[in-house]
């Protein structure tokens, strides 16, 4: 708890022997001119009294701060690190204060962070984490975002969300479709897919793209080929082991993000399987490490920095009546981890 005896600006002004207005100009960084001597006196008095500028009173007065809140699912995931770098570089020099909130994919916590950012009078909320396929949750998110927007806040969504607002939409479905087409064109038929968290729209869209590629090739898609993952590296490793433990013999593995693909690579190595000679492996996102692993990972490049930048650009434009959607293409990047199906294998 705070001391009841909080030092106020009035105390500072009194100690410095200046008017309250002068003290305020100095302490609150107004651009009105104050002579260096007066400034010195005010700053000195504030220091002596251990005065802490009360941002809350300011926030109430100004109603908005320069805070941009970004909500991510996992701050340790390179996917979000790269988006955050884009958000930062777009905000450079604008005085933007970036606050990152990590839900760890907990729906309840996502709501708490939304409330927190609203309560802190953030100017902007960027929801960088994927949307959810959960009706009740989406309704609760919608209520909070509506309240935030009605109070003058700006909201930008990354990925497909069930909320009508400005959004940056990477082409998850198209990217997955093109990726799996490349896999099938190399003769692979026994394809295993490491999926993402089932309630995320990103998982849905990427899986949909996989299905479409099978249909394009006139092949039946067996949903039993999907093993569970949660977009973490560990889950990619575990899913790959589980796949072989249950007797699977895929000639190609499609992980719905690179982190899981890197985990899968570790598991395959442990099992003595060579990539791509024994089994091909592809990922999604093109995070920096994808090009470094051996063999380098075939993946879908999602321009994550760019997505962050576009999100901030949208946030800075004044709100419009309809929602603006920025589509971002996702391109397949062929690297060494994808090979032709060996003719000696089934």
């Amino acid at each position, binding site marked *: *708890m*705070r001391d009841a005896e909080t030092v106020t600006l009035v105390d500072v002004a009194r100690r410095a022997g200046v008017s309250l207005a002068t003290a305020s100009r100095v302490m609150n960084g107004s651009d009105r001119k104050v002579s260096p001597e007066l400034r010195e006196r005010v700053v000195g008095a504030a220091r002596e009294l251990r005065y802490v500028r*009360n*941002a809350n009173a300011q926030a*109430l007065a100004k109603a908005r701060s320069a805070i941009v809140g970004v909500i991510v699912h*996992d701050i340790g995931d*390179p996917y979000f690190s790269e988006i955050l770098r884009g958000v930062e570089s777009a905000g450079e020099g604008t005085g933007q204060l*970036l606050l*990152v909130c990590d839900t760890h994919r907990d729906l309840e916590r996502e709501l708490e962070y939304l409330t927190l950012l609203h309560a802190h009078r953030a100017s902007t909320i960027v929801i960088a984490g994927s949307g959810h396929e959960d009706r009740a949750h989406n309704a609760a998110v919608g209520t909070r975002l509506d309240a935030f927007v009605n109070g003058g806040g700006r909201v930008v969504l990354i990925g497909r969300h069930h909320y009508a607002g400005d959004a940056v939409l990477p082409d998850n479905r198209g990217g997955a479709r093109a990726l799996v087409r490349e896999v099938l064109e190399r003769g692979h038929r026994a394809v295993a897919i490491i999926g993402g968290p089932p309630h995320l729209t990103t998982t849905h869209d990427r899986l949909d793209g996989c299905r479409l590629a099978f249909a394009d090739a006139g092949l039946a898609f067996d949903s039993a080929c999907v093993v569970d993952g949660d977009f973490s590296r560990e889950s990619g490793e575990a899913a790959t082991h589980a796949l072989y433990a249950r007797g699977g013999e895929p000639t190609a593995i499609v992980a719905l993000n690179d982190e899981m693909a890197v985990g899968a690579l570790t598991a395959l190595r442990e099992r003595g399987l060579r990539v791509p000679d024994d089994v091909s492996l592809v990922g999604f996102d093109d995070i920096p490490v994808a090009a470094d*692993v051996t063999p380098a990972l075939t993946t879908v490049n999602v321009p994550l920095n760019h997505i962050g930048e576009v999100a901030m650009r949208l946030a800075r434009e004044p709100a419009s009546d309809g929602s603006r959607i920025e589509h971002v293409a996702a391109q397949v990047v062929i690297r060494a981890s994808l090979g032709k199906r060996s003719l000696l294998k089934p």
Partner: protein
Amino acid sequence: MNRTENRAHDPAVRERVMDAALELGYVPNAAAQRLRGRRNRTVGVIVRDVGLAANAAVLRGIREVAHGANYLMVVADTKRWCMDEPRWVQRFHEQRVELVVIAASGVDDTDYTGAMAEAVGAFEADGGRVVVIGRHDLDVASIRVDNVRGAYDLATSMLAMGHRRFGVIGGNGKLTLNRDRLSGVRAALADGGIDLDRDVMYLEGAFTREHGNAAARHLTMQKKPPTAIVGLSDDLALGAYRALREQNLAVPRDVSLGGIDDLAPARALQPALTTVSYRHLEIGARAMRAALDPYLGHDAVEVHYELALRETVAAPREQRTHRSRSRSSRRTDEACATPRR
């Protein structure tokens, strides 16, 4: 609505109040709450680049403990503008954030240390609690790792393989993290009879992959390139790793490479990166626990490390050619040459 400490309300009543509030779009006004002097169950974390893998792991560690204790975690990224850090502490103070963790290396700079000491002192004097990670010249609780010894052990293991010609890639030289690791390498080489400051090319920059990449290129283009490269962080070593591959140099056959940190990508590479394991997840978790534990006072908590000898360090090529005399006469005569700047 305002999440008071006393949570013994009837859950049904709570539910009804929340529903009604949601319907009306009511949000408790944090600014108004704080004017009344309430603190938020929030930890403010300061980092210099959320994109660095080492920071990502530390943040995950902090998050695990924070969420477990029902604290929200907000992360401020200063993008390596370290003079923003005292301002962030002040801002968290103004926002009545309860705990602050500074997950960034100390900086050997009196302006920085002075401003931090003031901000941190005011924050704690007002009932908040601050924990720093690494060697900071601040009177607060801290999480320490022995960066000097870790770097010493790594360089010693490379010397033991027979390397005499080293290249060292560092980050920002003002950071205590960089200074400690560099002095560890310097001490190890001195024990092996090599004077780092005179005989070793040392390239300082930022703790990024980009710098690691550029510096490694520079090192390999020397007339007498090093047989062993030490990156003072894994991010630097990962950048170097890519540079070596891009130049068709085989690791460790042509060049040995060591990093420090042991981040997730280190194990995923093939060959896997030899590095020093600093357990960043644990460092983050310990930091948050220290923040939650006022009885710890201003003590330092030590987190141990171990050497992770993997596949990127092998005997230098010259030694092997000495034995077999078969390939690469190009560098044979350099086997015993003293590395020069």
